[in-house]
Structures are given as structure tokens and as C-alpha cells.
């Protein structure tokens, strides 16, 4: 969250911090800084760019091939006459997804990450130099297909949407808790295939999500036959309205996991500064 104030020092881990005297010429410096502080700083900077232009930014995450680009194509078809949309595509290689989005008449910029299996806030900031944000209502960032690390990187976006396609199995929230805990919305995709599968149960998938103490809404949909898309479009409209009213009161929206850190931060007496000092500290 913030790099210097130690807001990741939760009530659970703080009592373990004990002071100890230096010995044998070794001085121990207490730091207590988030390893992702550089990324998080850049993400806040990105969010300030987005908020200045009043554009709601949604980070779409899933395993490879769960239907992120297909969902974007179907979404753009429905919304392009009423909203101004743009897309940032993250992939290891190829510009395929960007071409698919551009074919829908919407600006898209491709970030090819090479070997990096996730987008980070710096990559997104670089992409912003290649796109015009002014006048946009909605920016989608399609993250690299990967259920592991994209969840750890705040991009400066406002909402996390995680797709789970029915061919992946309904236990994925239990197997990838870091990702699904971060979901502001879970989409169960490719529901047109459900009749061909005997062991995917949308209620079980939802239960596995709730077991992560995440009460996010779940929408089942298919980009192929269009079922469930109305609920998804309604969610998007509601999020745009909520975001704009937050901006009116000088607030912004943060994606789920980052919000936890914020809440902790806002609670008086729960966070303390741990400045770098010469005191030896043993944890």
C-alpha cells in the first residue's frame, strides 16, 4: 500500500516485533517496508491519472483461455454506442488479442511482457503514453492469462474481475486463493458448455469463493450464446455510477485486496510508523 508508513503491519504480526541489542559489530535495521512498494507507488500514480479523466478501470484476470478477450468482444458490441471504451492487452507474445479488439472499432494497446507472467504498474504506465484517456468512460486491462501472480500487482485500476470457465473445475477458488480473494466480481464463463460437463457446479464454485471470506457477486455467462451478459452489463453500469459518485466526493475506488490495506490504514491506533533506526530489532 504505502511504502513508508508500514500499513502492512497488521495487528496480527506487530506484537512479534521486539528490540534487541547489537552484537559483534552487526547492526540490525528494522525496515518493515512492503516489497511491492515501488509497484504500489506507481499504481497510485496511475490511479491519479485515471481519476483525473474519470475513467473506470477494470482488471480482467483468469487462467489462459478462460474467455477474457471473447467477453471483451461481446461487451464492446453491446456498449460501444453508449460508452467510450478502450482496452490494454497483456500477453507474453503476439498482438492477436489487440487485433481482435481493434476489429470491434475500439482503441487497444498491446503490452507484450516477454517472459513476465503478469502486468505491473510500470508497464501499464508506459502503455498510457500510447493512449488518450480523455473522454473515455471505461478502460479494460486484460491481464496475462495466469491465476497466480497478476493478483499481487496493483495496476492503479479500480475493480478486479476474475473469470473462471466451466472447463477449469469448480475448485479453482480453493486452489488459487490469492487470486480469488482479490475478486470484486467472479464471472463463471462458457456456461454454454455446462450441458457437456457433469462435474462443474456453479454453486460449489461460489461456495469456494465464499470460503475465502469473499462475498463478491457471481455472474454466470457465456460470450458465445449471450446468456448472463445482461447481468454483467448491469454490473458495469452500476460500477461506473458508483465510481463517478465517489469522485464527486473526492474519493476513489480501490480493488478488493488493496482496500483491506486502506481500511487498516484508516483505523486510528492500528498503524504506526516504524522509521529506519540504528536500534537493533529482532523479529
Amino acid at each position, binding site marked *: 500500500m504505502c511504502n513508508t508508513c508500514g500499513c502492512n503491519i497488521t495487528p496480527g504480526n506487530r506484537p512479534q516485533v521486539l528490540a534487541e541489542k547489537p552484537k559483534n559489530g552487526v547492526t540490525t535495521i528494522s525496515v518493515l517496508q512492503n516489497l511491492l512498494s515501488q509497484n504500489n507507488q506507481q499504481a497510485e500514480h496511475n490511479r491519479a491519472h485515471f481519476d483525473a479523466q474519470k475513467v473506470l478501470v477494470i482488471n480482467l484476470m483468469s487462467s489462459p483461455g478462460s474467455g477474457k478477450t471473447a467477453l471483451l468482444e461481446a461487451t464492446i458490441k453491446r456498449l460501444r454506442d453508449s460508452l467510450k471504451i478502450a482496452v490494454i492487452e497483456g500477453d507474453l507474445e503476439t498482438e492477436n488479442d489487440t487485433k481482435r479488439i481493434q476489429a470491434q472499432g475500439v482503441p487497444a494497446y498491446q503490452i507484450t511482457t516477454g517472459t513476465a507472467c503478469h502486468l505491473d504498474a510500470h508497464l501499464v504506465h508506459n502503455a498510457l503514453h500510447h493512449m488518450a484517456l480523455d473522454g473515455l468512460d471505461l478502460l479494460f486491462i486484460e491481464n496475462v492469462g495466469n491465476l497466480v501472480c497478476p493478483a499481487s500487482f496493483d495496476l492503479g485500476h479500480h475493480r478486479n474481475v476474475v473469470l473462471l470457465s466451466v472447463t477449469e473445475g469448480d475448485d479453482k477458488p480453493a486452489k488459487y486463493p490469492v487470486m480469488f480473494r482479490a475478486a470484486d466480481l467472479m464471472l463463471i464463463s462458457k456456461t454454454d458448455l455446462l450441458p457437456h460437463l457433469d462435474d462443474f457446479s456453479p454453486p460449489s464454485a461460489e461456495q469456494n469463493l465464499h*470460503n475465502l471470506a469473499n462475498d463478491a457477486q457471481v455472474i454466470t455467462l457465456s460470450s458465445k450464446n449471450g446468456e448472463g451478459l445482461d447481468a454483467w452489463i448491469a454490473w458495469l453500469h452500476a460500477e461506473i455510477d458508483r465510481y463517478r459518485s465517489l469522485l464527486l466526493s473526492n474519493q476513489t475506488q480501490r480493488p478488493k485486496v488493496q482496500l483491506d490495506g486502506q481500511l487498516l490504514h484508516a483505523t486510528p491506533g492500528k498503524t504506526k510508523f516504524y522509521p529506519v533506526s540504528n536500534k537493533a530489532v529482532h523479529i
Partner: protein
Amino acid sequence: MHELSLCDDLLSQVVAIAAQHNAQSVESITLQIGALAGVEPALLETAFALIRVGTVAEQAELIMQTVPVTVLCQLCGTQSEVVANLLLCNACQSHETSLLSGDQLILASVALNCAD
């Protein structure tokens, strides 16, 4: 697998602290890693071994403390230690809990060999 880029950030923080304190070398680096941090300690260790070569932290020991996942129940107030994919209250089984610890990825401390 972003442990290599994480190590990059880690090392630049450590090098900056060492310079600030005129350290000759870094003795050890202590991290706190929660089970919900999304980082694999073993991969982090491998990445660190590669990246520290030729720096002030070349000889540094990397100490990784894993932090258990604990939640606070919103309904009954019980604090429970839980597994990463079942964040339920141990007392009443509610999933209306908030995370107390387990998602941190923190550079906790650095032990330095200083000139004086």
C-alpha cells in the same frame, strides 16, 4: 513466477539501506511472507541467490519467516488461525471474517556489518 522482479526491488531497498548506514556488507535480510502473499519462498531464495552477486549483499543470508493466516470474525469476535483457502471462523464457521495477517510481503529487517 515474478520472484525475480521482486528480488530486484528487494535488493535495491537493501542496497540503499546499506549505503545510508555506511555498511561494509549485509549479514542477513529478514522477510516476512504470508501464505496469502502469492510468493513462493523457495523461488524467492533461488532468485535472490542469482541477483545478489556482485552487490553489498553478496554474502547475505536470506531469512524468510512465514506468517500464519489469521482472521477476525465479524460476528463473534473470535480470532482464528486458518488455512489459506478456508478463511472461516473456527468458533462459529462464519465466512464474515477479516484478515488479520497472512498477506504480507515485507522486508522486516536488515543486519549490517558497519565500519565502526
